[in-house]
């Protein structure tokens, strides 16, 4: 990193006074350059995608996408982040467990400067953020109720009951929902763990099925089976997948 060049910062908060405060505090730090202010998670993803900032100052509670979801969508692109929150016991626990710095609102200019110092150090060392671990701790084992998919600057929010099935494609999963396919960079086994176990069954190494979409199971030759969905799509069922499917259906 070139030391003489200013660090680029975006601030994300849905409350205008809160953004104003960060803007004011940042003015005391000439090595920081505020390049975008975002009022919600969608704008944040867009701005981060366009500007590739060095630092994101990110509020946890926001409409549509919260701070954690923004972080999830940005993935490895995020170089460093400072979370801000008024009060969120789950978030605080996650921050503390993974030693991620955060600012408790209202915060002083001094405390803000400290957080910037930590961020500078992190950037200099190019330390990776423990994004995945942070998200997992925050989720506390609760199943997802919606999937977030980023398509460059756009974000799609898909409630999980709209998902028909998920197909594994190398490092990605292809999510079939409401007649469309969405690509998401995630391992299928990872997604399987996050989805509710009584709603989604891994019927095959490559397929994760929303069982409410299952119309019937057909026997093809050599006792291998095929899942026929309500929209007539056919998906293969592996032997292990059939056992899991039976276990869920028999319950």
């Amino acid at each position, binding site marked *: 990193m070139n030391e003489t060049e200013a660090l680029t910062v975006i601030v994300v908060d*849905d*409350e*205008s006074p*809160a953004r*104003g*405060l960060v803007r004011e505090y940042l003015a005391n730090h000439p090595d920081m350059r505020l390049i975008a202010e975002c009022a919600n998670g*969608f704008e944040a993803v867009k701005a981060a995608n366009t500007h590739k900032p060095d630092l994101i100052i990110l509020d946890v509670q926001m409409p549509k996408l919260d701070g954690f979801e923004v972080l999830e969508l940005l993935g490895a692109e995020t170089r460093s982040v400072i979370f801000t929150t008024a009060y*969120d016991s789950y978030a605080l626990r996650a921050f503390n467990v993974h030693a991620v710095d955060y600012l408790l*609102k209202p915060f002083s200019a001094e405390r803000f400067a400290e957080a910037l110092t930590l961020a500078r150090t992190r950037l200099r060392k190019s330390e990776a953020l423990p994004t995945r671990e942070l998200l997992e701790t925050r989720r506390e084992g609760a199943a997802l109720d*919606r999937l977030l998919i980023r398509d460059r600057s756009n974000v799609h929010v898909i409630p999980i009951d709209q998902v028909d099935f998920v197909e594994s494609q190398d490092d990605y999963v292809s999510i079939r929902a409401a007649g469309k396919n969405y690509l998401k960079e995630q391992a299928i086994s990872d997604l399987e763990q996050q989805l509710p176990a009584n709603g989604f069954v891994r019927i095959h190494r490559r397929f994760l099925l929303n069982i409410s979409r299952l119309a019937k199971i057909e026997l093809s030759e050599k006792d291998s089976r095929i899942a026929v969905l309500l929209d007539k799509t056919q998906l293969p069922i592996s032997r292990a997948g059939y056992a899991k499917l039976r276990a869920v259906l028999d319950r």
Partner: protein
Amino acid sequence: MHPIFTNGKQMALYILGYLPIGAVLVIGFGHAGAWGTAAAFFLPLSVLSGFLGMTAYYVCRAFPISQQYRIWRALPAQATAAVTAGGFSVGMAWAWSAILKSLNLNVQPKMYMDQPWSLFAIGVLLFGLAIAFHYALIASLDSQRSESQVLESSLLVREAELKALRAQLNPHFLFNSLNSVSALTTSDPASARHMCLLLADFLRDTLRLGSAQRISVREEFTVLQRYLAIEQVRLGSRLSVQCAGSDQAMQEKIPALLLQPLVENAVVHGIAHRLEGGTVSIDAECRDSVLIMSIANPTDADRPRSQGSGFGLNLVRQRLQAHYGAAYLFETVDAKGTYRVNIRVPLAAVETTA
């Protein structure tokens, strides 16, 4: 004070209860040709012994019987009282017969005065009946009292719990508001001061209004509007408020801060989740004998109703239960992009006569 004495209706009923006893005596002592005398003698006397019987209340209060104090403990005192009452009865009979004689009504009560031991026995018996009656009365009064005490104390306990819960209710609101104040201090000092004042007023309201207390819908609306004004500083143009109530509804009394958690939900779980924000609508009206209140907000289609709102809903439901028993309706309707909470409670006038 004798409990029956304070209620004219009960008093009349009690005294009338002695007339059948008098009638039995008339039949027992009267004979052909002297029915008039028997009636003129015994009916008024039975009413008088009714009044005499009321003194049993004080004896019963002084010598209560219960699990710990068995009846034999009260027996000597009651026996003494009954004997005294018997003697008193004979005295009353003597006086009454003298009065009847002096009135020249062509009645000869002298034949009854010839058997004073019978009169004495009747007096003792009637007083014994009065004692039994008063023990039963006291027992029933006590159980009524303890029942209402249990109800009252359970309401107090519940309210105390709710108060404790509400005190820790929303640190998020408080810290966010303080952050707004902190932010506005340099950029817009006048707004910062305004925010401080709003916050102070709102906090004072929540501290002042004991939760067992009832306030008018108008006062409740004032508190809600203060709360919403604070949230408007934070959320800016994203939050708008529509608040309406009929004149009659505005004067009705409801448990203080009943609606506050619902309005908070409407902001935190409704408006705050929408990029474009929306309007929180608060309405109150009276229809028939019911006060109808509703709070509505637009919802975010992408986000399932969050779990967090359940806390506030339960709090309100429990308070309604504590204040109105089963006589309330509480429902939530989530349809067509609007989340609405409807509450119906009886009007205060109806509630007290019920």
